[in-house]
């Protein structure tokens, strides 16, 4: 059984030839992203569906009250769960074994997001503490991958961060040893405290003259592109993921093997990524602002109930 995409030599040579002339199969330029479409659920908090061309993921954020870890009594819990099922592409198998290529891909993506969002401190976990050492919020982001056409890392990072920014946890009051939780109708729920908005940008590298040229040759005329489709991802010689935020802080940089790249090229990538991150952050923030305006406040909601009767 051939358990992979069959990419013919015709396709790979054609794509490379086109990339040399700064053309991509879907009509984009090399350093141009596909249209980012963010759908925020209009009637609940913390559910978003993000699509980038054909690639699509959904993310839901939920929370519950638990006991914090013994060694970190002042911190709440935050975890990101992602599972890639064959629903998005037969390339990903369910029922993972430790050495299958699918589980490696999945591991890579989940670690990348984990690093980009959790370990970069995007969510202030100390603000999730309710009573030190006793009670805290446990926030959980569930990622679902719905359709696969390349670039899972960038899109899932956007999905998680938008869902976190959109989520509201129920308001509570501490009364001695008791915690009183308030319904959405009783008190306006409170947003999570997000310290910065990390966004991943993945670069793919190609060398039309073969990868050896980059080690030995003098002229490193490699091609760089962002937001690769499935076909482009499959024939790339190496990739690099940068995570930045609007404050020009580089949260992480991952380049696991692949084509040798000059430091100056990486610097250029950072500058370019920074520009893109600015655009994306603005887009996310305006979308969330529009969404917040469209939502009714608690008072309005109550009045509406009366009106309906």
């Amino acid at each position, binding site marked *: *059984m051939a358990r992979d*995409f*069959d990419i*013919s*030599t015709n396709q790979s040579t054609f794509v490379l*030839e*086109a990339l040399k002339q700064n053309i991509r*199969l879907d009509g984009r330029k090399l350093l141009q992203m596909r249209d980012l479409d963010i759908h925020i659920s209009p009637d609940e908090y913390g559910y978003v569906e993000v699509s980038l061309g054909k690639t699509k993921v959904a993310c839901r954020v939920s929370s519950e009250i638990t006991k914090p870890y013994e060694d970190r009594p002042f911190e709440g819990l935050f975890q990101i769960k992602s599972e890639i099922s064959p629903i998005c592409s037969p390339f990903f198998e369910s029922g993972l074994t430790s050495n299958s290529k699918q589980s490696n891909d999945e591991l890579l993506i989940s670690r990348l997001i984990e690093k980009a969002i959790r370990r970069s401190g995007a969510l202030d976990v100390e603000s999730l503490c309710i009573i030190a050492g006793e009670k805290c919020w446990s926030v959980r982001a569930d990622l679902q991958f719905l359709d696969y056409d390349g670039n899972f890392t960038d899109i899932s990072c956007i999905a998680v961060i938008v869902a976190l920014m959109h989520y509201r946890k129920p308001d509570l009051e501490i009364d001695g040893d008791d915690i009183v939780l308030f319904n959405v109708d009783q008190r306006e729920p409170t947003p999570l405290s997000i310290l910065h908005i990390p966004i991943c940008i993945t670069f793919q590298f190609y060398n039309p003259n073969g990868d050896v040229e980059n080690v030995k040759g003098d002229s490193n005329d490699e091609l760089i592109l962002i937001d690769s489709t499935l076909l482009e991802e499959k024939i790339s010689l190496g990739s690099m993921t940068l995570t930045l935020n609007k404050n020009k802080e580089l949260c992480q940089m991952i380049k696991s093997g692949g084509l040798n790249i000059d430091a100056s090229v990486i610097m250029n990538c950072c500058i370019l990524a920074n520009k893109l991150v600015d655009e994306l952050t603005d887009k996310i923030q305006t979308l969330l602002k529009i969404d917040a305006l469209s939502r009714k406040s608690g008072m309005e909601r109550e009045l509406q109930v009366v009106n309906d009767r």
Partner: protein
Amino acid sequence: MTEQTLIIPGDDINISEPTSHMTLGPNILHNIENNNLIPTTSGFLNVQTKKNNTIYYIESNTKRYIPNVNDFVIGTVVGTISENYRVSLNDFSTTVLLNQLAFPNATKKNRPFLKTGDLIYARVLRSDPDLEVELDCIDPTTGKEGGFGLLNGGLNFNVKLAFARYLLFNSNAEILNKLVSKCQFEIAIGVNGKIWLKTDDLKTTIACMTSIQQSQNWSKSEISNKVDAIFKSSGL
């Protein structure tokens, strides 16, 4: 004459004028006991009358290609096993065989050399449920090449299976007629939902590919304008 009725499995197929000569196409089962016709899939019933023969078949769109004898397919060579090439017709499905001697004028000493990743246009020679599916690259009527064999250069892409059949079996498909008026191209259509296309120019190839892929969702009247728009936006 073509008329279309929606059929779901188990429906009765009413044949208004039973003729002595009838041909049953794909997805229709003949129950010998009571002489009934049973549809095995949901889709549109197609009735075609040719001279004194009537052809009945059910047309529906599927996602996975199942080989049938005499189908024209496009496959990717994925390996070699003794005297055979392993060819993949579908992503993520069982590969099929192509004998190294199944080419016109091929002998043990003189046979075409295919590499992994090469694209071929072939015919399904045998597809028994119990045996491995086999392809060949010989036109059975003439014993010559007949357009089969290695596809050089160009670009291949996927379309829906029903659309691929429509393009292959309708010599005056609107989209192809329109493209002919725009540019020169070579095309090979495989009923396994793969299309190979080659033009002189890279941009034209991409424009043609986009037109064909997107025309799957267009109505017939839109085709002309939308193809013009695609060619214009890519600067041709």
